[in-house]
Structures are given as structure tokens and as C-alpha cells.
């Protein structure tokens, strides 16, 4: 079943008044349950593609459909709702809220979903247990290592079991061992919970874990590989 489809997707930025075509004519189909990587050199359009799929940005041309719904037709508040319920994000810089503890960061999304406090806490602890980070519950981000923070970010992204998780260079700030463990974790969540993972990376060791890799160059799909 398809979860994401892009059709003739274009994105043009203005860079000091000069138009830059970040994406050109991208046709991409992502199916439920895929563990997909988007690869390419810097400036190839990986982050731009993830932003458009994640309803964080609007295309200059073409369409993005999430579970059959066209994103461009939606209002800002509808897109926020969509992201809340259907999309998890993992960022390169972790982006945890610094004044909240690990467990509070994970609970935050469920708070936005108006979930009762007890249920929020129970689900957060459960997911932290699965990811092996229960001992971090009361720590703030500045008390955790990069790898720990990224695990908390993964927990935050998947705690409400969204259909799809988008991860933009999730291992870029991690050492190779920690990066490996993180990708293993994401694979495990993909297998056990059926969450579709789409992540961008230019690290070949990380790309090896993906079952499908879409290579971008200069804003276009150069090739795809499948395991």
C-alpha cells in the first residue's frame, strides 16, 4: 500500500534573488513498511525532499500525497494536525526541548494529542524501555550524550506510532558505533511496529542498512537500488 507519492515534484528557492532549483520532476512512490534511504551529495536535495514529504514546506510544482491526501490543498492548521498524527521527525541536531526531561520530551507529542497524563506517562516509559533508555527519563538534554539524545528523539518520533517517520541525517553528529546502533534501533521499530522509515544520509555504512536507496543528484533521482 502506498503511503507517500510524489508526482512531478519541483522546488525552487530564491537565493539572494537568484532562483535555485532544489528539486526537479521527482516521481517517487514509498510503500507502507519500507525502510528507505535517500542518498546523495550535499546540495542534491535530500533535505528538501524530506521537508516536502513531511509537509514542512510547499512545492513549487507537482504534488505530494500522503496516504492519498494531497498536502498542497491543506491549510496550515490541517498540516500541523497531519504532522502530529501521521509523521514523526528525527533531526540531525536532535532538537530536543532543552528545558524538558527526556520523558517529558517524549510525552510532549501525546500532550498535543490531548492524551491523559497517566496514559502519556505509561506509553513513554514503555517506549523508553523498548529503546533501552529508561534510565534517562529524568535527565535533561544537556545531561545526555549525542547518542542518548538521538535515542530520545527516536522515542519521541515513534511514541504515537505514526505511519511514517522522516529522519534527516540522523547519524551525522554521531560516532560510527553509535550511528550503527541507532540505525539498528530504527530497523527494529520498522520491523516490529511496521512504521515506514525514510531517512537521508551520505554515510555509506548507514546506507547499507536500508532495503531501498534512492540516489539524488542535482535535485533529480539518479538511480534506485533495492536489496
Amino acid at each position, binding site marked *: 500500500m502506498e503511503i507517500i507519492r510524489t508526482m512531478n515534484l519541483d522546488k525552487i528557492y530564491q537565493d539572494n534573488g537568484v532562483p535555485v532549483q532544489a528539486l526537479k520532476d521527482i516521481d517517487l512512490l514509498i510503500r507502507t513498511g519500507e525502510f528507505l534511504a535517500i542518498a546523495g551529495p550535499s546540495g542534491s536535495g535530500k*533535505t528538501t525532499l524530506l521537508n516536502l514529504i513531511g509537509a514542512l514546506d510547499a512545492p513549487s510544482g507537482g504534488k505530494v500525497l500522503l496516504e492519498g491526501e494531497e498536502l498542497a490543498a491543506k491549510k496550515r492548521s490541517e498540516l500541523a494536525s497531519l504532522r502530529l498524527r501521521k509523521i514523526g521527525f528525527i533531526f540531525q541536531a536532535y532538537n530536543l526541548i532543552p528545558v524538558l526531561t527526556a520523558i517529558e520530551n517524549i510525552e510532549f507529542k501525546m500532550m498535543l494529542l490531548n492524551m491523559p497524563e497517566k496514559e502519556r506517562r505509561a506509553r513513554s516509559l514503555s517506549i523508553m524501555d523498548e529503546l533501552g533508555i529508561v534510565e534517562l527519563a529524568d535527565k535533561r538534554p544537556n545531561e545526555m550524550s549525542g547518542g542518548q539524545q538521538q535515542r530520545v528523539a527516536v522515542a519521541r518520533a515513534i511514541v504515537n506510532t505514526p505511519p511514517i517517520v522522516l529522519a534527516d541525517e540522523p547519524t551525522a553528529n554521531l560516532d560510527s558505533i553509535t550511528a550503527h546502533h541507532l540505525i539498528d534501533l530504527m530497523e527494529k521499530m520498522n520491523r516490529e511496529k511496521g512504521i515506514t522509515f525514510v531517512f537521508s544520509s551520505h554515510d555509506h555504512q548507514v546506507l547499507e542498512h536500508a532495503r531501498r536507496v534512492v540516489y539524488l543528484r542535482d535535485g533529480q533521482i539518479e538511480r534506485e537500488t533495492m536489496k
Partner: protein
Amino acid sequence: MLAKLAWRNIWRNKRRSLIVLAAIVVGMVVLVFSESFIAGSLKGMLDNQIGSHTSHIQIHRKGFSDNKIIQSTIPNASFVEGVLQGTPGVLRHSKRVVTYALISSASNSSGVSLVGVDPAQEQQVSKIQASVVQGSYLSGKDHEIILGKNLAERLGVALGDKVVAMASMLDGHVGSDVFRIVGLFETFSSDFDRLYVFIPTGNAQRMLGLGDQISEFAVLAQTMELVPQLDVMLERELGGSYEVLSYRELLPAIMAILDVADEAMGIYYLIIGAATIFGIVNAMLMSVFERIREFGVLMAMGMKNGKLFSMIVLEASYLGVLGMLIGMGVGLAIYLPFWKYGLDLSAFSEGLTMVGMSAVVYPILTVGAVIRMAVIIPLVAVVAALYPATKAIRLQPVRAIYYV
């Protein structure tokens, strides 16, 4: 959790938040002191006026206040007395003869208001007896007079000296009598001391050929709050031959000062409110700009504009409420000793007596003032947050997340 996040956000930059709080606290202290001092001064002025001579209500023949001639006496004093005794809310009353007179000594003379009083009744209604600083109050014997200390100085007379009072009689002739000064008084108002003299009622009635007629009833109500109601009741009961004037009508100048004072407080609030707003807007804007990436992440997670807006407004509200509470506490700590012991302004007593204020002012903080401050300052904080909050919700998620 949003409240928890908002509270913690305030303390990300402790120094900045403490500076904003300090500004609010200072503003609150100024407001507490201003409100209480102005209220206390004005109450003091009003109490002085009411206590010295005006009373809560005065009753005259209709038209007396427009033309204070001796012929304008109370039509039926017994009737009025009966009504007063039967009206709930009336505490005490005193009968007076009031006329313009010329008082003369060997060396000088001065125009005054000559007031004939029953000493026993009058001391229940006014504080003149308590203001006597030399000699004694009237005992009721004929030819006694008490006058203001500064009037005595002007006339070049002292305790025990004689003065002559001269005034128009009921029949139009000029009446006069000689009086011995038995007491000198000094009230809150130098003008009052210069313009009023008191003699026994009987003496005044004989000197002016009044018989048993009087000019006015001075009435004290049980409480100040009852006065408007009493005013209406007495007018209804006494009918059209009488004028019933409350202190509000008798003291238009002071009432005008009270109204101006309200507007003055409004200006205080405006100034302090503006300073508070600018302080909070500045702090909140800096806080918003420092968190642009974080707001982008919150939007990416699915936080809608309403919640983001509320969070920022909540942060400002916390600053406003906390500053208000601390400021109120500090303000009260400063206010309470003055409330108990008074603020001694005797260095300015000459100027104060000209406007009817006592040298020692007792500030009063009313419940209304406390509520006003408690509501307005946090409200100002909320208003201050609107612009920064609006800036935050206008961020585009993708630009915010990758903001450098």
C-alpha cells in the same frame, strides 16, 4: 505540561527575567504607594472637612445655600428634629445659627462666618473641641467666643481678650455684642481658622433677634456609605421647603480634587503600564528569537499556532503575576508601617493646611485598589506578549527548523 514548559522557559535566561521582574516590582511598589498615599490624603482631607464643620449632611431653608441671609431660617426646627430622630441611618445632629459677621478688636477687624452652636450637641458632630489648642471649648455661657489662632494673631488678640461681633439682624438692623475669647483653635485648614468663629446659640439668637430660630441642622450619618441614601430619604420626608445637601454638594472643590485624583491615578497606571509593556515586549522578543529553531521543531511535531501563541502569552503572564505578587508584597511591607504610624509631612505643613490636609497622612490601600493592581499588571503583561507571540506563529516551520 504547556504550563510547565512556559514556566521553565522563563528561567532559561535568569538574568533577563529577573531584570524584567525587578522592573515590574518597582512599578508595583510605586503604584501601591501612590494609590494608598493619594487615597489616604484625600480621605484625610474629606474627614477633616466633614469633621470640622461640614458634617455629612446639612439641612437649611430652601435657597439658603444660594443666599445666606439671616432671614433664611429653618421653617420648623421641631419638625426637622422629629424627622431626623425617626430616620434610620442618622447618627447625631446639631442645630446652628449661621451668619456673616464682622469681628473687631482694638487694632483690627475681619469678616467671618459667625456660627452659634449648642456646645454639647456640636461636639458630637464636629471636631472643633478637639482642635482647641489654647484655653477651652465653649461652655454655653453667654459672651463666650472661640476663634482660630491665626485669626487671633491677625486681630492682635489673645486668650481672655474681648472682641466685638457685628452682623445683620432678622429685622435688618445691625446687631452686635461683646465676647471674651475663651479658646483658640487650630484645625487642618488655615483658611478655616481664619474665617470661622463660634459662640453659644442662645447668644447668637439674641444678638440677631432670631428668637428661637436657627439657620441649619448639621447631620452625621452612621456611615459614609449611607449618606446618598439618607440624602434622598430626608429630602422626601422634609418636603420642598427645605434643602438637604450632602457633603458632596457642600464640598464641590474637594469632590473635584477626588475626581482629578482618580484621573491622576489613571495616568500613573498608564506610565507604569507602558514601562512594563516595553520591558516585557523586549524580553519576550529576545526570548522568541533565541528559540526560533525550537519553535520550528514544535511546529514540525504538530503544535498548532493556538498552542504556541498560548505558551508565549503564558510565559509573559507568569512574569506579570510573579512581578505583581512580589511587588505587592514589597509595597505592603513599605505601606504597613506608614498605615499604622502615618507619614509625617510637617515640613510641608503650611502648604498642606492651605488645601485642607493634615501634616500627618495615613495612607489607605483599599480592596478596590489591590484588585485593580492585581488585575491590571498581569493584563499588561499579556498585552505585551501579543506582538512576540504573533511573530512566533508567523514563522514558517521549515525556515525556523534550519534557522542559524
